């Protein structure tokens, strides 16, 4: 060992003067709440343009649209918190959609005939398939040490291809089921409402609540943050890092499958391109909600807010009749804005830390 000298980091080049600290703190507070602020601004702008925007029925509809992306994004957030990334969620949604579609429309071919399962069983199968494909992501990342970006990119193609193979590219057009087969009622999760609120929204609320509890109130949640914050320290603290990583990919896969099922139920049909490129919206929602792509930092509630911003923005643009091309431009700009402000928040935070340390 030679001199490594004192390891205290050098102070920021120009620390804010005393009087600026209060200002910096206020700015930081605004930056932390930026997702909510953006959401409020969006609602105000669109309500001013269209009287239809801020009606109860439109809010419910938009929230229902948000639900699918929010559930995908919650799953992806788990992965990003560990410092990984999951690009395969759109494809997993498509795959489970096709599996559920196939089981409801044509049943399981057992050679002598076709077996049909009840809707509940089919839904469970769909989610398990998603979880297993997620587990495959996890194994590639841990056991085979494939970079998460590459592993999930590979699975993106594999799962999409599997979805297409299931029907040879075709669509399962009618998922309403029949009484003889005992598989009616798939429309419940995507179309029906409970107490005036769509079932899909209730499901989103349940998933979000469960995710919040897991991330903030369980040892497993704490370990997720530790793995993303400093993997080596997590190892040394006796955390089974690989197990945590596999678990988050399984969660992400299961959430993706669930989102795929909601989409399919709402559509009443399963087609292999279901949820193509949805992974990008999901990642955008997570980032918009303040999840750091480097891992270790982020919240489920932030992600849900991010999904609301994206959904309320997209639907608002459609509602007021903005052209498709401009919709793309605006969405991209909002995402970039989110990342830029995230960086600003980090810088401000660390310079404040140094001031108050």
């Amino acid at each position, binding site marked *: 060992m030679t001199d490594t000298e004192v390891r205290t980091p050098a102070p920021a080049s120009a620390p804010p003067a005393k009087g600026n600290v209060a200002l910096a703190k206020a700015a930081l507070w605004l930056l932390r709440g930026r997702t909510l602020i953006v959401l409020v601004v969006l609602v105000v702008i669109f309500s001013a343009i*269209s009287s*239809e925007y801020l*009606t109860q*029925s*439109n809010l419910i*509809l*938009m929230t229902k*649209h948000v639900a699918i992306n929010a559930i995908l994004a919650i799953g992806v957030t788990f992965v990003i918190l560990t410092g990984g990334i999951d690009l395969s969620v759109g494809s997993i949604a498509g*795959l489970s959609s096709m*599996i559920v579609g196939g089981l409801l429309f044509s049943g399981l*071919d057992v050679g002598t005939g076709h077996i049909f399962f009840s809707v509940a069983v089919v839904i469970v199968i769909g989610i398990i*398939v998603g979880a*297993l*494909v997620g*587990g*495959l992501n*996890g*194994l590639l990342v841990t*056991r085979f040490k494939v970079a998460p970006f590459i592993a999930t990119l590979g699975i993106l193609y*594999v799962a999409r291809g*599997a979805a*297409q*193979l*299931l*029907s*040879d*590219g*075709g*669509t399962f*057009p*009618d998922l309403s089921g029949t009484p003889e087969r005992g598989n009616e009622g798939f429309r419940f999760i995507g*179309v029906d409402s409970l107490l005036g609120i769509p079932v899909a929204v209730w499901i989103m609320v349940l998933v979000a609540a469960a995710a919040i509890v897991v991330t903030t109130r369980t040892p497993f949640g704490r370990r997720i943050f530790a793995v993303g914050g400093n993997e080596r320290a997590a190892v040394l603290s006796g955390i*089974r890092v*690989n*197990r945590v990583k*596999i678990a988050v990919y*399984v969660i992400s896969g299961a959430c993706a499958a669930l989102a795929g099922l909601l*989409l399919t139920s*709402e*559509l*009443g*049909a399963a*087609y*292999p*391109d*279901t*949820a*193509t490129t949805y992974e990008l919206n999901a990642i955008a929602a997570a980032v918009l909600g303040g999840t750091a792509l480097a891992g270790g930092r982020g919240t489920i509630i932030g992600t849900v807010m991010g999904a609301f911003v994206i959904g309320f923005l997209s*639907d608002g643009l*459609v*509602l*007021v*009749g903005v052209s*498709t*091309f401009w919709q793309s431009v605006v969405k991209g700009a909002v995402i970039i804005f989110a990342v830029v402000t995230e960086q600003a928040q980090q810088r401000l935070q660390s310079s404040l830390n140094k001031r108050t340390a």
Partner: protein
Amino acid sequence: MKVFRKTALAASAATLLLLTAACGGGDDSGSTSGGGSAAPAASKLIVIITPSPDNVFFKAEQVAADAQAKKLGYETLVLSHDDDPTKQSQQFDTAISRKAAAIILDNAGADASEAAIQRAKDAKIPTFLVDREINKTGVAVAQIVSNNAQGAGLGGQEFAKLMGNKGEYAELTGKATDTNAGVRSQGYHGILDQFPDMKMVAQESANWDQAEALQKTQTILQAHPNIKGIIAGNDTMALGAYAAVQASKNKKIIVTGFDGSPDVVGSILKGGIKATVLQPASQISQMAVDQADAYLKAGGKTDQAEKQSIDCVLVNADNAKQVTDFAVSG
């Protein structure tokens, strides 16, 4: 830990294998079929390139061309460019290097495809275009397309009739970069704009996609609750729009599509979607293969005009029963 991992690995691998095996029965697009094991004579291979067979329309087109070519004693190589001109270009290189006798193509873009077709021509391989045109003439031997403008006219007339020539409606258009999206929209408006009482209150692109059509229709219905009808640029969008209508308060909203896909024909039979315009996909493919065969047998000559336009057929409750696989019988 170890056990956990192994089980998970085995289960995941098994799932994928099962999935893949369960679907093994389908047509493997991309592989050479027919012919037998002997090395193929260069002149007996027809390469069929279409957009993704995810869409039943292209699937029908592909299957019809493949079957017709095999019937005439050719080997086939069936490829899909997924609407990616770069991929299409690479597939042309494959066809050239395999010394194909002819190429049947549903192209990936009017302008972006010319260079590849010219390259094939330079290599003395004739290309027969189906379904979609290119802007240049003299490059491909034939361009056999369904008459989208005529078809859209039919669709527009039927939609107006269903609406009683008045009321608010919305239009879902296809991918803005696709020529047919524009042609169909213009065809619809050529008719609809003649009725002063018909008012288009929203026009959105749903990129030919079912789920996107669903969500956008829901939002449109939110903004314009008095809408009486939705006219869609293709059948998948019509299906998405119809699902949105079913989930809304006004289930009587009229939805029409374009393509004549089995799913929509089925919906018409059940009184769901009201009408669609059938493009004779199978017929066009068969014509292209027949003309390629004649061209090759005549030693590189054709007596057909390059641009050939095949009329579309309106499908509604009256004739839906007679429709199978993009063809109206009887």
